Structures are given as C-alpha cells and as structure tokens.
C-alpha cells in the first residue's frame, strides 16, 4: 500500500534526518515506528504526506510515485492520508465542530468552505466521528476548553473525516498519561480493525508497541536499524535493543 524507497531527508541547515530508509507498509497493518528522540520519526512521517519535501528517494502510494506530484494531485493524495499529532494541533480558538469539519476540506469546493459552509452530510459525518471517539457532547465547545485526551480524540475525529486509507500518527500519546494513552491507542486500534484503516504510528514506549502494533520498524540516527513482526519485539534481545536505543538506554517502560 505504501512503499518508501531509499528516502533521504536533509534539512536546509544541513541536518541529515533520514538516511536511505526503505520499508513497506501493507494494507491493514498497525505499524509502529520506534527510535530515540531525534532519530527521525517525525521527519519520516512528514515526508510521507509531503509536509516535508524529501531530498532523495521515492514515496510510492498505492502503486503511484507521489514524490513529485503537483499541488492539485498532492491534495487529492493527502486527503487519503489522515494525520494525528503529538501536540494535537487543533485550532484552539475554533469550536470542536469546526476543527473536525476542517478534516473534510480536501473534499469541499474551496469557495464554499471559505465562508464556513459545509454540506449537511459533512456535518452529520462530523457528529458521527465525534460519537465514534466518545465525545459527541463537546461539539460546540472551544477546542482549548477540552482536556488533552479529549483534544487528541478531536484530532482522530478530524483524521476520520478524511475517510483515510491510512493514518499517520506521530507520537499520538506522548503528551498524555498512560491510562489515556491506552484509550487513544484503543481508538486507533478500533479504526484499524473495524474500518481496515492502515495505521503508521510512532511510539516511545515498548509496551505500547507490543500491545498494539502488528509490525515495527526502528530508526536510529536516521537509519532503519530494525524491522520485525509483533513476536520479534517480545524477543528483542538486549543486543538488538541497544542497537536501536543506543548503549546507555535502559529498558524503561518495557516489560
């Protein structure tokens, strides 16, 4: 479904964030991305929907090379790719409803949406999405009145509005406490199992990876250093672990 080939990303200041990364995500997978802070997880996810322009390599989405597609096509691709962020990235001063509806912008004729007009269908869809993540009663609240966990649910609802084929989640639970983390990842798992939405999710904690992911890739200093199935994570030897997380790393959080 999604193939990344020899991806290299160099920031304008010369930082090499990704070096020759290749892997494939198959349909229906819940794939985890692990790695230390600064290993390039966020950069990788942002290259996939071209929020960042890769320096070299290819992104193949459903058999099509989208590395260089132009704006109009790019928008069409982007609306199939939902994205969930660590900092939620909601428009804080807008209502929850508007935030959720903004996920639909890729489908709306630009001129209509400019004056805040969405079709009735879209509004119904938004209510359904909010129900799905368990906060239908918050539709008219301002986004910044919500707790962190609720805000992330709005983030997921916004991604849902895109009717995505894949959701890219960049450490979706890193700013939440463990209980909330499970509830949010539970929602993603639910989408993955029920709606067959593929998920590519970067995570910090190994136990979360073990609990939710079907496959994992590991990054270290921009290089792909690990790729394996669910079972492989459990049997991750100390040696392999240190390869991913570096010499000093402790197995904190891993059981």
């Amino acid at each position, binding site marked *: 479904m999604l193939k990344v080939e020899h991806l290299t990303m160099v920031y304008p200041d010369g930082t090499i964030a990704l070096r020759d990364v290749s892997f494939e995500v198959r349909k229906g997978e819940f794939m985890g991305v692990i790695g230390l802070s600064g290993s390039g997880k966020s950069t990788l996810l942002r290259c996939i*929907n071209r*929020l960042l*322009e890769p320096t070299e390599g290819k992104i193949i989405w459903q058999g099509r090379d989208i590395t260089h597609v*132009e704006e109009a096509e*790019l*928008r*069409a*691709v*982007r*609306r199939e*790719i*939902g*994205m969930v*962020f660590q*900092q*939620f*990235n*909601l*428009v*804080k*001063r*807008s209502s929850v409803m*508007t935030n959720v509806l*903004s*996920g*639909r*912008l*890729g*489908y*709306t004729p*630009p001129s209509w*949406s*400019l004056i*805040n007009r969405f079709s009735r269908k879209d509004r119904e869809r938004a209510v359904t999405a909010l129900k799905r993540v368990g906060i239908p009663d918050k539709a008219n609240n301002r986004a910044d009145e919500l707790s962190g966990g609720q805000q992330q649910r709005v*983030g997921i609802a*916004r991604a849902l*509005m*895109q009717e995505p084929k894949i959701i890219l989640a960049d450490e979706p639970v890193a700013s939440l406490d463990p209980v909330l983390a499970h509830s949010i990842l539970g929602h993603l798992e639910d989408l993955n199992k029920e709606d067959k939405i593929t998920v590519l999710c970067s995570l910090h904690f190994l136990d979360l990876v073990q609990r939710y992911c079907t496959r994992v890739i590991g990054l270290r200093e921009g290089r792909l250093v690990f790729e394996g199935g669910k079972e492989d994570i459990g049997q991750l030897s100390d040696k392999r672990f240190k390869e991913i997380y570096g010499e000093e790393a402790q197995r904190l959080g891993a059981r």
Partner: protein
Amino acid sequence: MANHLPAAPKGSPLHAILSLIVPGLGQFVARARSRGLTILASVLILGGLSIWTIAQEARFPNYELSFSIYVKLVLETGFLLVFLLSLRYLLTKFVFRDPAAEAFGTYGIAILFFLALILAQEPILSMAGRPEDLAQVYTGTALYSAAALAALWFWQVIDAGRVGALADENKLPSMAGAILIMCLLIFALGYNITDFDLPKAIREYKDISILFPRILWPWKEAFAYDQEVVEEFQLIQAPCPEGESGPPSNEPDPDEPWISATPTCGEIGVRDLSGGFAPGTELTITGGNFTPGMEVHILWKNPIGNPFVPRGVGETDITIDENGEFTTKLSIPSVVIPESTAAGAQIHTLVVREESEEVFSLRLSDEMKLALVGILETIMIGLMATFFGILLAFPLSFLAARNLMAPIVLPLQDLVGSIAGLAIGILLGAFATGQIAPILGGLEQAPIPIFLIALLLVITLGTLGFQWGGRLLGSLLKNLGTNASRIISALILGAMLAVPGYYLGQAFSRGALSIVVGEERAAASEVLLAYAGAVVVALLGISFGLLNRNPRGIPFGSLIYAITRTILNIVRAIEAIVYVVIFVIWVGLGPFAGTIALTLHTIASLAKQYSEAIESIDPGPLEAVNATGATRLQTIVYAVVPQVVPYFISFTIYRWDINVRMSTVLGLVGGGGIGFLLIQWQRLYQWELVGISLWLIAITVATLDYVSSEIRKRYV
C-alpha cells in the same frame, strides 16, 4: 615615605608628533588604521560642521572668515589647555611633591579649562578677530566648540603616543574620552542650531501667562449669552453741498426709544498727513425712552454700511438720565469715502445702541458648535482611515507573512503561465469595462458603478487567468522534458518582460537621459532606447529562468513577500501629516485629503503589524489543516485566521486610537477636523477657542485611549 612620582605613561613621541600634524596619522601609522581614520573623519566633520554653524550668524555667511576665526580659537584654546596641563605637571612635581596629592585629575583639568574659558572669553575672542569680524559669527558657540576640538586634538595626540608604544594592537585603549568630547562638541552645536534658549523661556513667561487662563479655562466662550439690543438710527448727509439740508431730523416717539440729531447735513472731519485732525460739523444728539441709568453707545456707519466707533469727536459712551433721556454733542468723524461710491449724496447713519446685561443661557455658542463638529470630523477621519486601512491591510498582510509565503515555490512553467494569464485577465477585464462603460452612460454619469465593475472584472479575470494560465502552460509543457520546458518557459518570460522593458527604456530616455543630454537629443534616441530596454529586460528574464537551479522551481512566495514588505516599509516611513501636504493639492483642503493620507499610512502600518501576528502563530494547526488536503486559501481561513483574530482586533483598535490622535494634527496642514479650526483660531488670537479645541482633543484622545485599552485587554 618614598617619593613615588607616577610612572610616566610610556609613549611614542614619534606617533604623537605625527598625530599633532595630521589627526589620526599616528594611530594610522601604528597600524590602528580604522582608529586613525575615525579620528581624522571626526575632526574634519566636527570642525567643518562648527565652521558652517558659526558662520550662520551673518545674513551672508562668510565661510573663509569663519574658518580663520575658528582656527585661531582652536589654537588659542589649545595653548590654554597645554598651559593648564603644564601647570598641573609643575604643581605635582615641585609643590606637592606627592603623587597622591595630584589634586586635579582629568576632571579637575576639564573644570579648570571650562572656568578659564568663561573668565577669559573676552580676551580669547578679541585675539581671534576684529570686532566687526567677530560680529559675523556666533562667538559663544565658536569658542566652546573650538575648545572641544582642541581637547579632541590634544586627546588624539596623547592617544597616538599610547597606541604607538603598544606592542599588542589588539588591546587598544578605550576611546571613551574622545567620545565624551565629541558629544560635548555636538551638544554645543545643537544648542546653537536649535536656538536653545532657556533663559528666554523664563524671561518671556509673562507673555504666555496672560493667555494661560484663557486657554486653560475657556468655557465662557462655549456658551451663548442672551442680550437685548436696542438700536436707533438717524440719517446724516455729509459732505453737505451748497443748498442741501440733509435727511429730516427724527421726531421724538412717545412710546418707543428714539434719537434725533441736528443738523442732519454737515462736513466730514479731515485728517491731514501730518496727523492733525479737524473735526467735522458738530451735531447735537438727543434721545428718549431709553432705560434710565444704562449706558448707550454711539456708532457711526459710513455710506457703505460699515459701523465703527467714532474717536476724538466727542463722548460715545453716554449714561441715560432718570427720565430715560440724553443729550450730547458729537462732531462728524473722519470718514474715508471710496471713489467708486463718491457720486451723489453721501448718507451716513448715526447709531445709538443700548445693550442689556449679558444673560447666561444654556445654548452652546456658535464657535462651540463648530468645535464639536470639528472634533466629530476628527474622530470620523480616524475611523474611516482605519476602516479603509483594514480592507486593504488585511489581504496585504498575508502576502507580507514569511511563514505563509516562503513555502510557495512554483515550477517555472507554472509561474510563467500564471503571469501571462494574469496579464491577459487584467487586459480583458479592462477591455470589458471599456465596453460596458458607455452602456452605463460613461464615466461622467456613473463613476462609482463603473469603478466597481472594473474592480470586479479585473480581479476576477486576473485571478482566473492566473490559475488557468499556470495549469495550461504546465500541462502543455509537461511532456517535453525538463530542459525543453525550461527553455520555452524562459523564452515566454523574456517575451512578456519585453513589454515593460520597452516602456522602461522609453521612460529612461524621457526622464533621466533628457536631463543629462537635453530633451532634443534624448528624443532622437527614444525609440532606440525603448527597444534596447525591451531587449535587456527580456534577456534578464530569460537568464533568470534558465539560471534558476532550484529543483522545485521559483521561490515565487519569497519574492512576493520581499516586494510587499519593502513597499510597506517605504509607505510606512512617511507620516500621514506629510501625505496630507500632497493630497490637499490633489483633492483640495478638507477632511477628504486627511482621510486619504491617514488611510495610506494605516494600510502600511496595519499590514505590517498583522503580518507580524501571522508570523507568530502556532504552526501546528497550519500543518494539520494542510495535511488534510486543504488548499492554501482554506488553510488560511481555517488555521490562520482564527489564531490571529484577537491580535488583529487589538491592533486595529489601537490603530484607530492612533489615527484619531493623528487626525487632530492633520488639520494644521489642511487635512480637516479640529486641527483646521485650531490653527485658524490661533491665527486670530482667539485663545478661548484655542483652549476649547485643546480641551476637546484632550478629552477625546484620553477617552479613546481608555476605551481602546479596555477593549484590547479583553482580547489579548
């Protein structure tokens, strides 16, 4: 205790001497190049400025004279300084014999120097030039600035010695002393140039002290006063030709006030050139039925009807007796009769006027009403300027926000296609407007609808052209391969740029060239230059297209950003009051000129502030909305606008506040509003009315200040 003389600072005499001859040379030779050059430049500039300044005393400045006086003064004060320093040296060495007793250090020298200058002012100046020469310069300023320059010269000689002896040129001694001296010198000049005169401000306080009460408490003039006025008339003929007896004398009236005079025909008083005055015929004036005890006033109206108080021909303020009657004598005053009206009988009017006491009424005086209208106008100018300012500043601010514009990179062919489309769209819009205009009755008949239609057509067609042009050319060239499409796009760009290039060449020939070589020869080469301009600009465009190596295309957004910012900065640099000076020529005196001027400044200021607010937004939501596949415009509406609204409101209200404040002064140069009244009343010495204007301005601005800060508190 041992006699510790201060270790003489090690110095290099050679470098010191060099600097004595040419300031900064010693430092320069000692490889402190920039220090040496700085010193030389400072001495030259400050010396030159001083000479120029002191020469301005004369109506026709004599710079040579001023130069010679100044140089002599520098030398004299220099010797004085050296004398003081030697004195210190001798005292320290032979009298005190104790380095700790070096009673006057640098500060001591400075104070002594200053005192010596004050005390010896006369002899020093008289040595510098003859009195009639000295009368042609500002002597005080000359003396002190010359002394400062001498001190600077002296300092840099010492400094050259120190710098020359220095092994390590990195550790240059501080220049604080020199900088202090320069500041003093500049202060001395500034004191002169600004005519700074504190004693004068105190001396002439009494001039303003009379006015202060009238300005500070002007409210008497704010109200109208009721007053009953009774005026009675008697017609008088003057001069009195032979045989005429003049108009009839009034008969006493039994009920109403009346006056009458005899005779009613007489000669006009004559004022001769030497100031002597021969009164005219004496009239006896009687009257009755006035209010007993009141004072009545006699006025004279000349044949044209202008009244005045006759002087030197008799009593004009007369008290009525207990019967309500009076009798008085008055000679016919001197009345200048214009030749144009000199023909025929000259009938004057004698007026007796009784005014009752002024009774305070709650009605506002006419001037107060005018002032209120003025302040309202002022507020409205500020309001309108802010309003129009927002309309234009809002869209501009997005173009001037780096975080929104920098990511816009267009492939060359798209950009070229878009520009072509834009140009075609605008031309089509203009053409269509030209077709529609006659149907609506021409520009004279319906200017506003035509203007709106033009705006609408040009903007819509331009935008459509911009969008479709890019897509069209993009898809046309898509299959040609990168290089071929790049070359073709570059050629098209060149061809398009040739048009403005042509006009640029033409303008150059008409403007710049005709100044240098004269109009005729410039006209001869005009066509040639126009084509040359076209070719040069086209070549520039082509090479711009071909040389751009950015794989993703042209950083169009950054280009627009830079252009917008530059224009905004230039427009903003000029204050509204300066724009008014131009706009009153264009649209005439009055509030409209003020409004346009203020609008212009507001657009630039607001756009700058808005764009800074946009640049400071949280990029997260922007990224998130962008990732959903939204267009750029949608992203702006959903992710940017909600974030910046509070700042925009705050800036806008603050700008309104500033604009009202500004519009109070726009009137001073003809921009309408209260300032316009203020400056007129000031010229008429109507100090109460000036006071009323000032009060109204103060009240309005303070109120607005408070309201705007309260509103802004709510939003940010």
